[in-house]
């Protein structure tokens, strides 16, 4: 019974996304209320499907009763459940933030709901073509939201993301077309069995994988395919930046992990060492390059964006290693990074709304003037560095552990080194925030938007959560049963 809800959690935000547009005919600014009702209800439904996964194991649903492999299958397992939970939590949390911070137009909330539907769809689908559709829906929603900044920069950023993202998605589509030609199926489970029959060393199988990696690499924003991301994050309103940075790359990385682990399977990686090391070093390159670029930034939002490039390198490396420990690390980091990065953007928003500052040198002394938000920023940033016991540490630890177990000691070294680089830009930021001399010129209200207690409470809550979730993260390892996902 609950497996049918897998369809409902996608359909509900899609249907709800129409309501604000239609409502625009007689009422302005009603979108937020529609979105709250829809997303809170959706979060409850997501809670109930995840609960039934926890108690009963993997869920699967055939849409419209058409049998797989011809029909579309939706599924929920240990890889997707944490992502689904974080989507539910972040979508409601960010929505609360935009109550005051805006944008408040009805069309914005239509886009927001559509984006959410796409994110949920990517997470629960078990069909590679359906995955493409949802990636495109996610992309469309994200382009619209980024453009909602309303100035030239955001229009350029949205256009850049639109073009680059579409090319990336097309490459993915070519990849699955190759796989379809080779096997005649699009269902993930079916595909994985038939790819094995075709042979992991077959040219067409390898070519399809290469297209998929390059295509999704754009969506994940791995170095050097990341260039759309800093623009998109820094040009959009803070609420959007928070939402997009928390979830869009996250589900893309999840999709990449899903394709690597469920469709091509760890057996494929073992059969082609060059593919597996290719993925791992692609990830490692992103880890290092992202951190170095982040150190060079002067704009706080761009700094946070480049830090994402580095963190997603870690996640992809974890998927590429492909053992239980590293994949668990990647899943924990997907979850943890979403909360940390989203909340960091929202906190940067609070600071910008209060003082109108966005650049690193303008951050001097701000933490003393917004003590709660400042402390939350510090905690979140340190968790990003990987200070135990926060959740940022747990993800990195398990990926490093998996790397050591797989004999990839070099990757473990890279992870450690990136921790130092992360510390470098975080320390620079915190030093400025706490010990810098606040210039007289920066006055309260410089940003022109009101900061409510609720907004501050939200980021404080997130900072408490990243610390509290750390110690309990290892406890869910058994519940997720990632061994099953990896075909063990």
């Amino acid at each position, binding site marked *: 019974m609950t497996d049918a809800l897998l369809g409902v959690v996608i359909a509900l935000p899609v249907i709800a996304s129409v309501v604000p547009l239609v409502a625009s005919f007689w009422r302005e600014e009603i979108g937020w209320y529609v979105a709250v009702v829809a997303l809170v209800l959706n979060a409850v439904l997501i809670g109930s499907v995840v609960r039934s996964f926890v108690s009963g194991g993997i869920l699967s649903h055939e849409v419209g009763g058409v049998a797989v492999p011809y029909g579309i299958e939706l599924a929920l397992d240990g890889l997707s459940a944490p992502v689904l939970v974080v989507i539910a939590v972040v979508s409601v949390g960010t929505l609360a933030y935009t109550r005051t911070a805006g944008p408040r137009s009805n069309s914005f909330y239509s886009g927001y709901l559509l984006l959410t539907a796409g994110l949920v769809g990517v997470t629960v689908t078990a069909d590679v073509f359906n995955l493409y559709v949802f990636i495109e829906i996610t992309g469309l929603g994200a382009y619209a939201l980024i453009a909602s900044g309303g100035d030239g920069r955001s229009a*350029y950023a949205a*256009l*850049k993301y639109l*073009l*680059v993202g579409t*090319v*990336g998605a097309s*490459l993915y589509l070519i990849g699955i077309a190759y796989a379809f030609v080779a096997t005649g199926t699009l269902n993930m489970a079916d595909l994985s069995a038939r790819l094995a029959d075709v042979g992991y060393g077959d*040219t067409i199988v*390898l*070519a399809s*994988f*290469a*297209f998929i*990696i*390059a295509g999704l*690499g*754009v969506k994940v924003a791995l170095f*050097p*395919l990341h*260039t*759309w991301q800093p*623009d998109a994050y820094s040009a959009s309103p803070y609420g959007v930046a928070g939402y997009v940075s928390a979830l869009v790359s996250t589900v893309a990385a999840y999709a990449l992990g899903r394709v690597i682990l469920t469709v091509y399977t760890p057996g494929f990686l073992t059969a*082609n060492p*060059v*593919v597996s090391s*290719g993925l791992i070093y692609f990830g490692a390159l992103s880890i290092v390059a992202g951190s170095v670029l982040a*150190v*060079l930034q*002067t704009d706080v939002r761009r700094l946070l964006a480049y830090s994402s490039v580095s963190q997603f390198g870690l996640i992809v490396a974890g998927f590429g290693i492909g053992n239980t*420990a590293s994949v*668990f690390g990647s899943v924990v980091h997907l979850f943890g990074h979403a909360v940390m990065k989203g909340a960091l953007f929202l906190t940067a928003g609070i600071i910008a709304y209060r003082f109108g500052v966005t650049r690193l040198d303008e951050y001097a002394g701000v933490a003393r003037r917004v003590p709660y938000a400042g402390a939350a920023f510090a905690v979140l940033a340190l968790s990003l560095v990987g200070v135990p016991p926060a959740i940022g540490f747990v993800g990195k*630890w*398990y990926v490093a*552990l998996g790397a050591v177990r797989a004999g990839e000691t070099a990757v473990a070294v890279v992870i450690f080194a990136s921790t130092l680089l992360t510390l470098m830009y975080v320390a*620079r930021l915190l030093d400025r925030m706490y010990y810098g001399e606040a210039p007289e010129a920066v006055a309260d209200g410089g940003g022109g938007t009101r900061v409510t207690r609720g907004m501050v409470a939200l980021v404080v809550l997130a900072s408490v959560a990243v610390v509290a979730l750390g110690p309990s993260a*290892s*406890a869910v*390892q*058994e519940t997720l049963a990632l061994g099953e996902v990896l075909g063990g």
Partner: protein
Amino acid sequence: MSATVDLLTTVPPAFVVIAVALVIPFVSDRVGHTIGFVASLGVVPWALALRSSPGDYIQTAFMGFDVVLLNIDAFSVVMAVIFGGFGAVAVAYSYYVDASRIQTAFAVSYVGTSVGAVLVGDWLTLVFFWELMAVTSTLLVWYYGGKAVRAGYRYALLHGAGGSLLMSAVVLNYVQRGAEGFVFTGEGMASGLPAVLAALGIGVNVGFIGLHAWIPDTYPRPGIGASVFLCAFTTKAGVYGLYRAFPDGNVALAYMGAGMTVYGVVYALLQTDMRRLLAYHIQAQVGYMVGGIGMTSALATAGGFAHVFNHILYKGLLFMTAGVLIYRTGENSLKKLGGGLWRRTPVTAGAFAVAALSISGFPGFNGFVSKGMITAAAGKTQRYVVGGQDILWWLMMLGAVGTFMSFVKFGYYAFVKGSYEGKVRDGNIGQKLTVSALAVACFVLGVAPGLLFGILPLSDEWTAHPFTTGHLLEGFTLAALGIAGFYVARGAISRIGVARDVDSVYNPGVFYGTRAVARFTTMAYTAVDSGAVRLAGFCTRAVNQPAETARRLLPEGARETYDERVAKKPGETGTRAGIGETVLMLSLVLAVVMYLFL
């Protein structure tokens, strides 16, 4: 039955004791000591109830490694019983020597971590609790302040080093054993480097000769209540750890143990500070236990654990009686005590007599039984023979005679010789009760050793007959030799006075060593510093003005092109990729990936 087991294995007992320790600072002294007493005592029935259902409980994963938070077997149970039981008596005693609840909170957390260390089933959590024991006991020492602070610092450094050695042994063992992980397999440490590192790391805790100086350095310094705790746990947990690392024994360990019995006793004989004297006897007595673990025989191993049990009782009792004397007279030194105290403090003197006879191994007291098991094994096995003689047995006998001499000396100077000036009262009612309880225990286990045999490990592989004629004769002979020895040598002993121990070499050694390292580091630092400052200056400029720095690094001809680009492009360095460049990059990546994969 199994419902009881389920209930008792929901949480490790150590967690409960530690939780109580965290509460103690926030309640009154009386309530704090009471709950500490109850929590510690509760470990005894808890462990005994589980003894009949051995196995690994509370298995979980810690940072991706399998760990066992509660491991029940005959070894862990006997340790938990004596740790919990003695901890309770020591808490009660602390209350009656006016220990503050803060000190007792540290002490109870020390008890809790010790109980934790002996009840876990894997090396990783063992090391975790091992380090926590070092931390809590250091805090217990530090709490007293004054000279205890520096001693505590030395103690902490040495135990930190020991813990690290053990940790590296555990990690190397993990690397060698691989798939088995950290969980105890009953095989002990892999031979070679892991075994050596483990022996050295644990050797710090049990006081191997050369690594022992912290015992007499630390134990006499803190409050008298704290000393009672300290004397019981760290060294005995070490003996337990030694068994886990070397379950099949090791010849070198056996000889080290026998050597410790003699070494510790010789130094003990030369001491005048009561607690320092007792501390050297800890090394000597732990020597018997190390010997027991080292010898490859079930009787010796069981004897080692029996000696742990008995030793905690009588050594605790000795520290308590010494504590009562210090409490009443304010004097630490036997020479200043004045003597003749037995008339004024009859209960304390009686308890001391029981404890002294126990530690010396006089028939009818508990030390006689357990020491006898070890020496009998040393004699019986005939494996430790040098020049036709059972060398191990002879060393242990020598240690035993020395122990008699030393306690005749202690008793003689404290309670018999001379007469104390001024008024001295016997211990207060609580002190009398606690010392009497332990004295009775020492006596009962001495005449009815079957009570202890029931909970000893490997019980179906050995038999002990403590009260054979030969063995009794041995006990009386040792006593006679001890008394005679003291009578002959007492002049010499009091003339030699306090001897220098190994720490008089390595304390300055460490001091000058670290100073030399510091000097060298400073010089090296100065050299590196100027370079680093230049590099940092460059980095700062590069980070603050990336555009300008990048421009300067370009060759002369390219700067103009660069300036044009910066003017045209968004971003500060002009390196920000536009849409077309990104798509180009994507094509390149795809080409590279294709080239690699196909």
